[in-house]
């Protein structure tokens, strides 16, 4: 299956995602230039991390106005798979593909560390290889990852199962200290109503090889890939085996 990784000026995790999809998992993967509107037939489009346009105004705000984001939006509307990671999450929020906004981490500093996530649902293409309630360890690296939305919107989001991952402690318990960036409802990852668009602040591509000391992220990409060959519906039951691929 064909995968695409969007490249904005200032993207810097584009090659990391490319490496996991192309080299680790062996799928045909292309880099998609921000000025283009042609997704080259890619079935999975990843909007990667980095500092598009330096994040000079608000993270993701300028990139969200790029031509390619229009194409990604259409791809999503057709049910195509879209994954936003870190800056990609911020871009999808700014571009209106997902609801809400990111603000500075509440300690006002960039944070690079491992966090623990609880998988909130496993009927999504991206989470089908995980179990509900499974605890994942993943690195974060961002300055603006404090997810915000108004209370009504948050309630609506929760009601439709829009939360894919939440920050928890190592034992999987909700804890203020584990919600390192201060996100509303400890939200670490969101999906759209149809489940084909998902975005998260942690970096699954940075924990997808044994050499990196952690492979909790690999199943996320692998799940998305088999979701295409073996469409949604069986996701939840195919998840057995957790993070193993």
């Amino acid at each position, binding site marked *: 299956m064909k995968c695409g990784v969007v490249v904005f000026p200032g993207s810097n995790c584009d090659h990391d995602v490319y490496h996991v999809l192309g080299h680790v998992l062996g799928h045909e993967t292309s880099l998609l230039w921000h000025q283009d509107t042609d997704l080259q037939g890619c079935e999975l489009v990843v909007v990667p991390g980095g500092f598009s346009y330096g994040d000079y105004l608000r993270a993701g705000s300028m990139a969200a106005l790029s031509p390619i984001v229009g194409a990604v939006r259409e791809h999503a509307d057709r049910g195509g798979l879209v994954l936003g990671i870190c800056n990609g999450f911020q871009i999808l929020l700014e571009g209106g593909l997902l609801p809400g906004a990111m603000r500075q981490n*509440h300690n006002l500093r960039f944070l690079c560390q491992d966090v623990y996530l609880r998988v909130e649902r496993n009927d999504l293409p991206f989470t089908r290889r995980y179990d509900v309630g499974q605890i994942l360890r993943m690195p974060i690296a961002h300055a603006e990852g404090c997810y915000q939305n108004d209370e009504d919107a948050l309630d609506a989001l929760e009601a439709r199962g829009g939360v894919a991952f939440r920050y928890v402690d190592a034992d999987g318990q909700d804890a203020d200290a584990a919600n390192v960036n201060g996100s509303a409802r400890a939200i670490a990852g969101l999906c759209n109503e149809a489940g084909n668009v998902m975005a998260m602040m942690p970096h699954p591509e940075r924990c997808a090889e044994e050499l990196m000391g952690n492979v909790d992220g690999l199943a996320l990409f692998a799940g998305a890939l088999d979701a295409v060959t073996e469409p949604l519906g069986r996701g939840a039951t195919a998840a057995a085996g957790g993070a193993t691929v």
Partner: protein
Amino acid sequence: MKARVTVYPRAQVLDPQGRAIAQALGRVGFDEVTEVRAGKSFEIEFEADDRAEAEARLEQMCETLLANTVVEDYSVTLLEGATA
């Protein structure tokens, strides 16, 4: 023309930066400070035929790029060259 655009977090939205500044001011002896809100300010030079056009365009700039209205409010002031 020249305009100033000011963008602040909406009233309900947490403003950790403002809070941190208020606390820091307190620590260095400015006990009289009760609250700080931290926002952004942009000075924009641009061409426009008249005041009305200028205001309309500035509003569009805010909506498209300068502010994220999910969490921010903006306000616009024309500074000079705005005689028409």
